[in-house]
């Protein structure tokens, strides 16, 4: 008997592995890039003693709302020292301005948020410049809008200058007529030589999610070498220099690097990053599942309960056959026909409460993608 059970278990393992193949492929591809040999070794040993490896769920996770609240109220350590560190950088402001005027772009790096520092520098020192701030840490940055704004600022000055110099014919079209980012950038480059103004582009996180792509960097590089535009930018990612080629570095951005660690917390920059002890746990999924289920009819809830109870009772099974679920539901007068059950199942599938799997015997079966303890908790709360 024992060997047979073992065989079944092995088969089950294989089937499960098949389901996960897609996810694994994606990840293997990532790993193939670097240190894959050592990583594979380590992962291999980790999976070998998987039972020994501790799980995040073993941490007594607090409620996510409390976690969010605590995070927002977290007192900053060394506030005084950070203050004096930032104060010490004030003495460098005039040198930074000097370099900007010499035609260099300022690139600030070092650990800690540099947002407040750079904006303070801009407000106190760059008074002769129109300063446009780009919050590159936000994924919602739209470079076209930014470029349009810059083009409008330059266009204002260009028009004023054209009015005063009588003989000059206005040949360039209005920014409104420009369609693509490329067109706008070309427009900016064309009129910049004739503009009697200085614009400073202050980019927090030029390595941010929305600006990381090569096209955005190319556009920024082209704009940065205009005669009336200067650039002050910050980077936080250790690999940020890989964004630029030599042409961009030496002939367009012309960076002058400045190491300015501030140790100021990345409050705004990390605002939209998922919290490690928050998204990875099952707390989130249980809660969302509960919200969805409570919005359904009592019958639909009961159908889900039947499926969940089956799954809890048969943990080793891959899932419940649809026909089996139909029989059980019909016995309990929850559904009257296959059509009604299918309606409920579609609802579950749409909300990702239930997943369809191919059983090893070839039939389709239903499965709730939640760990056992999460499912138990869900059933308790779903009264």
């Amino acid at each position, binding site marked *: 008997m024992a060997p047979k059970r073992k065989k079944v278990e092995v088969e089950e393992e294989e089937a499960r592995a098949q389901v996960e193949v897609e996810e694994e492929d994606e990840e293997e591809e990532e790993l193939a890039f670097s240190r894959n040999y050592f990583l594979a070794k380590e*992962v291999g040993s*980790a999976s070998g003693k998987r039972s020994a490896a501790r*799980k*995040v769920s073993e*941490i007594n996770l*607090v409620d996510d709302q*409390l976690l969010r609240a*605590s*995070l927002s109220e*977290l*007192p900053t350590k060394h*506030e005084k020292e950070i203050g004096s560190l930032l*104060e010490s*950088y004030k003495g460098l402001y005039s*040198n930074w301005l*000097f*370099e900007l*005027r*010499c*035609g*260099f772009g300022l690139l600030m*790096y*070092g650990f800690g948020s540099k947002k407040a520092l750079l*904006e*303070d520098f801009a*407000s*106190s020192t760059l008074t*002769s410049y*129109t300063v446009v701030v*780009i*919050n590159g840490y936000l994924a919602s940055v739209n470079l076209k*809008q*930014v470029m349009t*704004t810059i083009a409008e*600022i330059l266009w204002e000055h260009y028009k004023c200058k054209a009015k005063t110099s009588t003989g000059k014919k206005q040949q360039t079209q209005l920014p409104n007529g420009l369609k693509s980012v490329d067109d706008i950038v070309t427009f900016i480059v064309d009129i910049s*030589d004739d503009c*009697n103004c200085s614009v400073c582009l202050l980019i927090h996180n030029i390595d941010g999610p929305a600006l990381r792509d090569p096209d955005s960097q*190319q556009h920024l590089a082209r704009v940065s*070498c205009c*005669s009336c535009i200067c650039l002050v930018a910050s980077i*936080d*990612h*250790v*690999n940020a*220099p890989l964004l630029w*080629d*030599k042409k961009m570095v*030496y*002939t367009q951005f012309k960076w002058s*690097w*400045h*190491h300015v*660690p501030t140790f100021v917390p*990345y409050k*705004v920059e*990390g*605002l939209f*990053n998922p919290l*490690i*002890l928050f998204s990875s746990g099952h707390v989130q999924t249980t809660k969302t599942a509960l919200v969805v289920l409570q919005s359904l009819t009592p019958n639909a809830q009961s159908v889900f309960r039947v499926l969940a109870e089956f799954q809890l009772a048969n943990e080793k099974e891959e899932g419940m056959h649809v026909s089996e679920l139909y029989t059980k539901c019909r016995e309990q007068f929850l559904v009257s026909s296959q059509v009604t059950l299918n309606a409920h199942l579609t609802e579950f599938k749409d909300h990702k409460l239930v997943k369809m799997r191919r059983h090893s015997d070839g039939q389709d079966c239903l499965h709730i993608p939640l760990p056992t303890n999460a499912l138990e908790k869900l059933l308790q709360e779903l009264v």
Partner: protein
Amino acid sequence: MAKHQSSPQSASSQGANSQDANHTLEPFFVLHKAQPQATVVEKVSKSRKGRKKGIESSPKSPEKSKRTTSDEQPSNTLYEQWRFKAFNEIWSLIQSSIEGVLRDINLKLFNEVLQWIEDSFSEIKSNVKLSSSEILQPYPLLADTLCRKIPTAFVLTKNAEYVDDIQTFCDLGSHLKANRCHVANMSALDFSLKFGIGGSVRSLLRQLHSEPLDGKIADMLTLAKWYCEEENNDKPIVVMIDDMECCNADVLGNFITMLSEWVMKIPIFFIMGVATTIEAPKNMLPSDALQHLNPCKLTLGTPSDRMNSLVESVLVEVCYCFSLGHEVSVFLRNYFLRHDGTITSFISALKLACSKHFSLESVSFLGLYMLDQDSEERWSEKFVYLPESMKRCILNLHSCKSEKNLQGGVGSIVQQLSDLKASQRFWSSVVLCLFEVARYSKMQFLDIFCEATDPKMYCMNGSENILKKHFRCGDKNSTARSSSGVGSITRVIHTIREMPVAALSNLLDKWNNHTEEMTEINEEVKKLQSVLASVDEGKVYEENLHNIRNRKSVSVISGKGNSANEKVAMLLDAMIRKYMKPLECMTLHEIICFRDVDVLQSGLIGDPRKTIQLDLLKCHSYLSCSCCSSDAKNLSPSMHDTSIMYKLAQEFGDVINLYEWYQSFKTVLTSSSQTSRKRGCPSPASKKAKPLPPSETEALIQARFCGAVTELQISGLLRMPTKRRPDFIQRIAFGL
């Protein structure tokens, strides 16, 4: 105004409540508009429009400064403006010198290209004569493929990095434009798969049309129409692609095939930069495109040739108003040789050094006086009006402290400055003489320059004759030194001893020009010239070209040649000892000499990967707080959370178990705080945590943990867990 005065820290702490907080979630916003009265357009350094103003705009305002001496702050601003003006003037001078050198070095190639275009164009014109209506007619196509060949010049750039060639191609474009050609300067970006052939044609038309396309369809017919216009007709169209190997092969292939259909109607020429070998186009382009090219091979000068010319004209000839200290020179040499070997990076490094010098050295504005051709009396007038604080600044320069003569006041400062300028002129003359020999023996000028700026070499040579030191005892020692790059100057002298008479005579002719300001040396040179001339009459003309290069035959043919060589070598040695005084040995050298190699290095090569990790591992050195231990290995709860986390992460391998990481973090925060509480000096963190119920303490620790992980993720030091391994985080950076 209140906003301006607030410290950045207060801005950050009040951020949530202030109006600025609204801006944090806006993708972009205008912080403030330029204040009209303060608007200063600093285009000079970028567009170089102000260069021609020249010396007239140099600080004429000692009189003005007199008015502001009472007020220190405005005076500082004034000096800053002067320093900026000095930078602009001097950098413009250097840059025009750089441009001149690069243009001259490429001029031969440019003329070759122009000749080739003119020849091919006249050949096409003699074969085909079409009217405008025929040009505009797209059909019939030319059936004969032989006629559909586009003359193409492959320019071998000999550079792995195309960044240097961008400027070369720009200059070539200007040269051709000035010689009746239409030029379109295209790059790999115009031949990308994303925009396809449409993008390429659009870019070509955009460059040729002086006005915007205004919604015209970018096709060959538009190009034909444009070419038929009277002012555009009868000129060749040159399409330049600076980095041909970076283009998308299919798009470029299609582009070539399409242009070839029109080649008899519109005379198009290609100039393509090839970085590797002449085989590259064959390997890259599809054969049907390749058959439409009529290739021709041209070659650019090597980066080391260009570098030699740059060193000569920029670092040596303009050295009297801005120069580099020895350490900076060595750094720049290594930066050029080991970093990427591009002239562009070297020039940008030089510009940064120049700007750092004028930005950081308070008396650097006096460099403008050096630029000035004024007499000493005029300088004295200017110095009289300098405020006392500035004079004190000058006297406090490191090189002045030991100089007792300077206490005499303005006159002595002017005298020293004048000496400095004269000494630099002599120094540059001697170095130019050295370069003449180096040119003969194909040595790198930068090596000699580095050695010539070394103050230690000068001190060492002061007492003893270089020649005696390195050559009397035999040459073995000097060869060993030269291989390590130390003895470049000794190698130069060694070369002189082995030079044939004809070359020596040429050398002396050139020295004659370089040493005009050093009368004593100039006379010696002339004497040697006459000595050599007498030797020449008898022997040298009999030598053939082979013998000139052959050392042994020279010594055999001209018995006196050896002694003449020795005399020339002795003369050079005397010149070095007497006149090649490195700048750093001079009083007041700080005014024109940039020596801070660390500042330059950090401004030039930011190494965020290493530095950000060091910030985290050694945060105490920046914060210098009293609560944390300065020992990097000790972890205390008062330390920066992310720093604690990163130090803990060092103990893990490639992947970090989240549970274990959290537990160790928690242990650091709680257990150590208990011990510190026992000691009676609670840390700030434990103070906060003490009155809280356990669940909230836990929440606080978890919040700190989450915050620190997010910060490490932003820094790119971690990769977040995947679905497959939700309990593990992957480390990205290993080692410094």
